[in-house]
């Protein structure tokens, strides 16, 4: 019993630390990568390679005054940033970093992640609504429509995956992919469209996390800063951390579902390092995409979801069902 409590506390601290450190250092990665794509050098003054920059930024954010503008809904305004961060941390609970390194190996882990990830949009909506700012309200409306539109193809793809794996337990899903040919992205025996399914999942997770090119809800050239226009200090900081935590979760899921999680591509040394390598490669791609493309337009985003992603993912669902039945 005692060891169980210690375990819970250890993982709680670990997960929060992981989420917070990731949020901080993904900002650094984002700035560095953006800089090098644009042939600049990026942060370099604070610490070697600017590695202490996130810490300094964090301190700056924490010491700033929290401004609560006139006319906002004071409770919702304070609640929204917390609501953005907590579900993101909750999602980490079921993510298997390695076979043993998982806070709670829940049988319905996949379901739980989607349940908590859906709360994120509520935070944006509340934040935008409570701010009493026109830009923020427009942004909140956009965020909701976008999330609703992209949850569908994402879930259809996940249903396809669940049909193949036969389980919702993330650790079991990873265990089914011992080497590169067994990874679900290349499991052509399940469906010839598996790489496409991965792409759909990836695009949807970009849209779900409001990342470029789908960052309509914080489109700075249209809506200034979107739903967090009125937030300062750690209110803004929490939104920011929540956003990066969501990117980590989206990429983790993609790694677990399609890229063999903590498994070694050659089946030799599975472990947490493989998970992290794959995870950061995907995150690198997410950032790389952001600094390459312009932003989509709203109807373009919905068209992509309803006209391309949903039909293809449905087709993939049927095809997989057929394959499962036949083979």
């Amino acid at each position, binding site marked *: 019993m005692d060891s169980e409590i210690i375990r819970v506390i250890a993982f709680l601290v670990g997960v929060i630390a992981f989420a917070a450190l990731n949020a901080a250092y993904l900002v650094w990665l984002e700035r560095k990568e953006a800089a090098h794509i644009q042939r600049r050098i990026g942060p370099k003054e604070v610490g070697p390679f600017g590695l202490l920059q996130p810490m300094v930024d964090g301190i700056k954010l924490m010491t700033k005054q929290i401004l609560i503008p006139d006319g906002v809904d004071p409770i919702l305004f304070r609640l929204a940033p917390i609501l953005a961060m907590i579900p993101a941390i909750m999602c980490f609970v079921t993510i298997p970093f390695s076979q043993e390194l998982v806070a709670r190996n829940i049988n319905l882990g996949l379901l739980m992640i989607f349940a908590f990830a859906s709360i994120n949009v509520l935070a944006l909506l509340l934040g935008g609504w409570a701010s009493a700012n026109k830009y923020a309200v427009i942004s909140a409306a956009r965020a909701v429509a976008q999330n609703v539109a992209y949850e569908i193809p994402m879930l259809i793809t996940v249903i396809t995956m669940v049909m193949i794996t036969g389980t919702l337990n993330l650790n079991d899903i990873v265990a089914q992919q011992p080497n590169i040919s067994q990874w679900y992205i290349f499991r052509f025996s399940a469906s010839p469209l598996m790489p496409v399914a991965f792409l759909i999942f990836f695009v949807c997770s970009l849209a779900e996390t409001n990342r470029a090119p789908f960052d309509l809800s914080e489109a700075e050239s249209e809506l200034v800063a979107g739903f967090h226009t009125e937030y300062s200090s750690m209110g803004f900081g929490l939104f920011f951390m929540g956003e990066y935590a969501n990117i980590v979760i989206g990429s983790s899921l993609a790694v677990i579902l399609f890229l063999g999680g903590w498994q070694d591509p050659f089946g030799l040394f599975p472990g947490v390092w493989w998970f992290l390598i794959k995870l950061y490669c995907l995150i690198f791609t997410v950032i790389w*995409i952001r600094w390459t493309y312009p932003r989509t337009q709203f109807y373009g985003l919905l068209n992509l979801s309803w006209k391309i992603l949903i039909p293809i993912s449905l087709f993939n669902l049927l095809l997989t069902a057929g394959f499962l039945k036949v083979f």
Partner: protein
Amino acid sequence: MGAYFKELFSGTKSLFVGLQITFGQMLKPLVTQQYPHEISTMTPRFRGHIELIPKEDGTTKCIVCGMCQRSCPSGCITVAGEKREGVKGKVLTKYRLDFTKCSLCGMCVESCRPGAITFSKEYNLASTRKEDYTFDLLKRLEEKAK
């Protein structure tokens, strides 16, 4: 339907081409200059604020004709001179430049017949006080000569 798939494929391809280009750029050398650590030298024609050109003995060539003052569109130059015993012409006693108004057009340099003023190559000018931009060019010249 054909057009739908064609657009789908060409569109996806264009996205991958974009990624390829930005990745290529990432591997190329940096083009920025790390400003406070590296300082670039200005080209010979760079127009900084004006300054007096010293003669060999360190004095000015200025004959206090006042052409620069008159030609200046924004009136930022104030020149004063006085007659002195044993010196031909006037002697420059004051050459004040109000750099806050100067637009670096070069009218004063052009109009200067003895060629006594030129553009300096100074560009590291920053201050929070307005007075720091009022230059006494004669004093600067004297300090330079020392």
